[in-house]
């Protein structure tokens, strides 16, 4: 037996789910799938919100419809909460591992081949999370609703009066832009993590990720901008 061949058996009957989760690759697969779930929500939420341009009746009816489906809404909410928890847990665990992997940093280090968005995922993620918490407290729970009264069920009123406060809109636009950065890298990177890549298709996927990210940012920020400009009131 050579000096290097001292083997450490991981045990004969380890649960494959546990083994999968414990590998960095497995965690990235979980992050990809949970990221995709959250992306679907982001798209759905945008399509719902854009109904604000169709007037109070339309969006209030949509909100009422969502609340009327009761259990189904909670299944979706629980799935999203689970996705968020898994996504963040995996990120934190991997980030700690990465920090450990380079105990002594470089005195000088240049980035030559990576996008700004990809290098700042650790920043865009937590800021977007902070925004989501604020956003839920404002528009779902109604705890924070500066300069006007939150009316349960009157989504249109809450939305317009909420975004008329300039800093609410500014914070919203800032956070959504960061979400765009997060998606610009995450949308194609999730395919890489689950093992889908192709020399011809991946560049297209990257372009598509950029386009979708820009479209989502523009779609979302059109709402506070229209309200601030008085187009929607």
């Amino acid at each position, binding site marked *: 037996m050579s*000096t*290097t*061949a*001292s*083997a*450490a*058996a*991981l045990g*004969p*009957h*380890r649960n*494959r789910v546990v*083994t*999968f989760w*414990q*590998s*960095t*690759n*497995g*965690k*990235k*697969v979980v992050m990809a799938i949970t990221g995709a779930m959250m992306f679907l929500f982001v798209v759905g939420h945008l399509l719902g919100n854009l109904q604000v341009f169709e007037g109070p009746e339309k969006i209030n009816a949509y909100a009422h419809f969502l609340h009327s489906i009761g259990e189904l809404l909670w299944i979706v909410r629980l799935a999203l909460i689970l996705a968020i928890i898994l996504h963040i847990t995996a990120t934190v665990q*991997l980030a700690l*591992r*990465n920090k*450990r*992997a*380079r*105990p*002594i*940093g*470089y*005195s*000088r*280090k*240049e*980035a*030559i*081949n*990576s*996008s700004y968005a*990809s*290098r700042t*995922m650790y920043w865009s993620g937590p800021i977007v999370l902070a925004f989501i918490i604020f956003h839920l407290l404002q528009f779902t729970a109604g705890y924070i609703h500066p300069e006007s009264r939150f009316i349960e069920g009157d989504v249109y009123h809450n939305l317009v009066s909420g975004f008329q406060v300039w800093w609410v809109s500014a914070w919203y636009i800032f956070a959504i832009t960061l979400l765009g950065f997060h998606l610009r*890298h995450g949308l*194609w*990177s999730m*395919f*890489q*993590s*689950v*093992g*889908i*890549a*192709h*020399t011809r298709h*991946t560049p297209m996927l990257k372009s598509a990720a950029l386009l979708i990210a820009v479209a989502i940012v523009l779609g979302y920020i059109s709402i506070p901008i229209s309200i601030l400009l008085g187009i929607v009131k």
Partner: protein
Amino acid sequence: MKLQLKIWRQRTSTDKGAFVSYTVNDVDPEMSMLECLDVLNETLIERGEEPVAFEHDCREGICGSCGFMINGVAHGPERATTVCQLTMRHFKDGQELVIEPWRARAFFPIKDLIVDRRAFDHIIEAGGYISVSTGQAPDGNAILVGKDIADQAMDAAACIGCGACVAACPNASAALFTGAKIAHLSVLPQGKPERDRRALAMVAQMNAEEFGNCTSIGECTGVCPKEIPLEVIATMNRDYLRASWTRREDQSETILPFTEWSTGSKLQSDPTSRD
């Protein structure tokens, strides 16, 4: 031409280490980076000082021995070039070059610019092979391989294991290396029978060594002297994902990672001492 070399000097693996600046006056633009260090070392030896230790072997960019950071970029500013192939004409007269070793926990320092890369050997040992019956050489065209598949395998097989990918990765991840070693076998018919086992074993070993994880940012492929594409990481992930859920045996063995530079006598051999 004249160059200012700010080089990381570290006497032993446990030594703290620090940068030392050297002025090299007679640098020929046709010299390689390693030849420039040779010139510096000649003068250091003449002065009775310790020469700068760096790894090298073939000096034609195919062995994977050499490599260090030059001004924050692994293997220096030229793409698809190892430091032995990097000629000094790419630098300006009077320029300062900051030269430091690969930095990663899995690549612990040995001396100056030399780091221990046996973690890579462990990953190869875990599954970087195919099992064949020995005996007479097989017929050349017994197994047909399409040109596109052969090219894809060759692109991955071009990896020389220099470690630049780990060095350039902000997470010190060995995903590009492991991906290349998995992909160059798994896309070929000869590598198919052991595809699942290989992916599981090599990924398990990669994760047992103290590398970070892949965040798909692509710095690795940017500095790779062989321009290994990021696609090999996806191939690794795909093989690993499938193997994880289809394998029949649950046993996965890994080799204990090295944690210090030694001749082998101080190795841990107790499997229960992990973690």
